[in-house]
């Protein structure tokens, strides 16, 4: 009887049962919302392949050259002749006694060369036997980049893209004789990834230049680049680069499938591709690395990764990516191993501060005064007297203004940028303290956090951490230290679930690969790095013979 009553005594309240119900409902609901969101955007992995190829086909309703000069010319002009920047120049081929037309778009060709060399050749030198046989034409015309096109629409597109097109009476196809040579900027240092030591070369907007930069990294017949046309309306070249004898074929297959499945009418930047091929849209972490530096790309290729380059953007993509890569830079390898390792560890520390700094501040100030050293507690109390806001609001005020400042700094013209930094950082910070809106201690915390987040080599990773910092602050404001730890655990759980092209995001920390630890927090001397990262399951694991 007493046993029963003690059981009855221990049956919890109805409130507890209600809480249990909430406990059940929240995860179910969260999963549902997650799934709904996920099905909205879909994933990069499973796009419908057939649909894409169909749309591509439909835009390519081919109209072949008829072979009749006048008809073809009319056909071309009727389609693209209304463009004001299109130059057509009809000329007689004297030796041949035929007519020809040269098409080019303003600003895409070097006029002088066109005039002097080509016109001279075509008008006065080109003889009958050069153009008599179509098959021989390619061999005999004195142009290095020459291709024939038998499809008018294709010809039109190429001409408008900037090729110099040539139509000659009696030939049943069009000729493209010069590559586009539009306005380009010169090759510069990588702007988003400044460096002290190492090659100062950054990618440019021209795909062929970028691929050439990769080629020029060294002699090899194993560096393979495969070209794809992407975009359904405005098409662009995309190149997948990899080392043929290193890369894992399954990985390559996966990347190719995802690139093939790209379905978008225009890809303005590699950022589009990154978002369309990544594994998890809802993760705050990037699963593809972007870089402007050819040396970073080639290092990645030699580790067995794959690079994706898109025409028109200086940012190349590297897949698969792991979390630690975002905090590493090629300079770690250029410097000697001791400073390299120390700097790398410093960066990991900075990443932690960038993520947790304000959260720790909030939880210590507002929840656990007992965990602060006494002397520090006294000086904090002294400085915080008169601050009218609770810690969370105080931190938010300063954090948000720092973020605005940073954003403004990017948009500002270069000469004003530093001035803005001084005004924003120094004057506002000092004035805020003087005005008693924030405490000086917080200014230190926020400043250190902000600087830490800038020390992360990959800009987009820094943005991720800054974003998550606000989440961690919310957790901290809710449950103090406990909340901060919950946030950290949640982050860990998320990161362990995340994969980038099949490689767990946290490798080699977990799953633990002891051999890859040589190159994680610590950068072992180069003589010790005999093998490629095990996580990529490369064909050839040895770096040294």
């Amino acid at each position, binding site marked *: 009887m007493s046993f029963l009553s003690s059981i009855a005594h221990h049956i919890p309240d109805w409130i507890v049962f209600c809480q249990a119900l909430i406990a059940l*409902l*929240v995860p179910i*609901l969260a999963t*549902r*919302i997650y799934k709904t969101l996920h099905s909205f955007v879909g994933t990069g992995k499973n796009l419908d392949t057939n649909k894409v190829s169909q749309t591509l086909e439909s835009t390519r309703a081919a109209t072949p050259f008829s072979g009749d000069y006048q008809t073809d010319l009319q056909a071309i002009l009727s389609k693209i002749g209304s463009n004001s920047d299109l130059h057509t120049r009809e000329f007689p081929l004297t030796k041949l006694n035929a007519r020809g037309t040269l098409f080019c778009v303003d600003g895409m060709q070097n006029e002088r060369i066109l005039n002097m060399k080509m016109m001279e050749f075509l008008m006065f030198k080109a003889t009958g036997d050069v153009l008599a046989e179509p098959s021989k034409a390619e061999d005999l015309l004195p142009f290095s980049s020459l291709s024939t096109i038998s499809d008018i629409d294709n010809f039109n597109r190429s001409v408008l893209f900037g090729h110099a097109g040539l139509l000659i009476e009696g030939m049943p196809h069009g000729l493209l004789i010069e590559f586009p040579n539009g306005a380009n900027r010169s090759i510069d240092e990588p702007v988003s990834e400044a460096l002290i030591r190492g090659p100062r070369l950054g990618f440019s907007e021209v795909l062929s230049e970028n691929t050439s930069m990769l080629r020029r990294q060294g002699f090899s017949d194993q560096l393979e680049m495969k070209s794809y046309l992407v975009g359904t309306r405005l098409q662009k070249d995309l190149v997948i680069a990899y080392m043929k004898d290193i890369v894992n074929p399954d990985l390559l297959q996966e990347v190719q499938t995802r690139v093939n499945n790209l379905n978008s009418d225009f890809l303005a930047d590699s950022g589009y591709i990154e978002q369309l091929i990544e594994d998890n849209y809802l993760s705050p972490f990037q699963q593809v690395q972007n870089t402007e530096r050819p040396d970073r790309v080639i290092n990645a290729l030699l580790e067995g990764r794959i690079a994706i380059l898109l025409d028109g953007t200086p940012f190349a993509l590297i897949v698969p990516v792991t979390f630690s890569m975002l905090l590493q830079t090629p300079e770690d390898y250029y410097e000697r191993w001791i400073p390299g390792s120390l700097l790398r560890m410093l960066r990991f520390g900075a990443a932690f501060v960038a993520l947790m700094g304000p959260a720790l501040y909030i939880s210590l*100030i*507002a*929840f656990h*005064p*007992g*965990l*602060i050293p*006494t002397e520090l*507690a*006294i000086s*904090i*109390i*002294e400085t*915080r*007297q*008169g*601050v009218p806001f*609770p*810690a969370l609001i105080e931190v938010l005020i300063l954090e948000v203004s720092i973020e605005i400042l940073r954003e403004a700094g990017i948009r500002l013209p270069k000469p004003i940028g530093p001035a803005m930094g001084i005004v924003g950082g120094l004057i506002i910070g000092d004035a805020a303290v*003087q005005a*008693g809106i924030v405490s000086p201690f917080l200014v230190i915390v926020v400043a250190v956090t902000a600087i830490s987040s800038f020390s992360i080599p990959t800009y987009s990773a820094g943005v991720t951490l800054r974003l998550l910092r606000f989440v961690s602050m919310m957790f901290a*404001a*809710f*449950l*103090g230290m406990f909340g901060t730890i919950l946030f950290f655990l949640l982050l860990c759980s998320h990161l362990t679930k995340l994969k980038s092209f099949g490689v767990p995001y946290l490798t080699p920390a977990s799953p633990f690969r002891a051999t890859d630890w040589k190159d994680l927090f610590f950068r072992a001397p180069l003589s010790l790095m005999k093998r490629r990262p095990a996580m990529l399951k490369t064909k050839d694991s040895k770096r040294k013979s």
Partner: protein
Amino acid sequence: MYRSYKMIFLYLLLPFVLTGCWSSKEIEDLAMYTGMALDIGQPAPIEEEFEAKGAEYSKHNKVMTTIQIVPMKTVGTKDKNNTGSTKKPYLNVSGSGDSILEIFRQFSIRLDRPIIGHHLKVIVISSKLLRKQTIEQMSDFVLRDNDIRPSTKVYISQGDAKETLESSEPNEIPSFHITGMYRNQMRTSKVLDFVTLSKLDALMKTKRSFVLQNLVSGGGQIEFSGAGIIKGSSGHWIGNLNQEDAECLAWITNKGKAGAIKAYDWDNQPLTYEIKSIKSKISPHVDEGKISFKVHLAVEGRLIETWNKNNIPSTNYYAEKTSKIIEEKFAKMVQALMNKLQSKYKVDVAGFGNRLAIVYPSVWKQVEDDWDDTFSRSEVNFTYDISVTDFGSITETE
């Protein structure tokens, strides 16, 4: 339809989130107390005034608690130039009653900020109080409380404990001053090892007698002066050891590492010996139920000061001669201490019992319960090995 349910549910969750931050208390809205003094119960002056106006509650005034709150609240924005103010950086609040927590809660109806004990550094208990109440009663609350750290140091005061929390120095927080004083241990063994709450807990649990450093205050200054003895079996304070006894106790228990010994030499002039290292070894002997101890003290040091007009040459002969004088002084000091321990107070605070328990656990089991008495009847023999290693930076020849 389904989606709208979800939205309703989410809105229902919102209040839970918004009512969060239950434990959130900004640090500046709390009053940290860093020192606490326990005195014999009598209403504090302010309390008397309150009570005169009828502001009272039922109590018997068994103990008076004083806490030291830092830092003082400053009004308005900080004027950096206003250095002229000699306002004390701390606030002492006193109250009396029968329960320390109840007194604390009385403070809560007087102060504008809730008090927190996370940063309590030092507890001073007046010896008069400990004659009436036991140390267990006085430390029960502070050991149970979740805020107060077991690393808090405990001292005894000869006079009023709350006076030790006053300072005549401007800009000095007395409780920090007391906390920092142990740093001088490297200079003199008169500064005993501090006793933290967790150590106090352990000492009380074993029911053995122990000493707590004694604080004396005067003229707004404080001094460590010897030690107060707490009798293990009763938990009451029974008397004080003077400074030299305390020093000697530290040496015997192997806890003192430094100190100066002043003796009078063959010409009756002061001669000071500075201890460099000191090792003591207590070895218990049990002979047919009779317990005795042998203590061996090995001391190394240098002659550091002499007022003798005749020079003392730096030779082995004089080193020998000096060490003899020091040894005599040593023996005298030890004798004085042992007299107090064995005859006057009849307590073992020098850890003889611990040694016995380790070497002869079975014998210890029998005498454990009235060890203090047994100890006072035991024979303790001292042997000394004192050497003068050098004469400082002066070398004199004969």
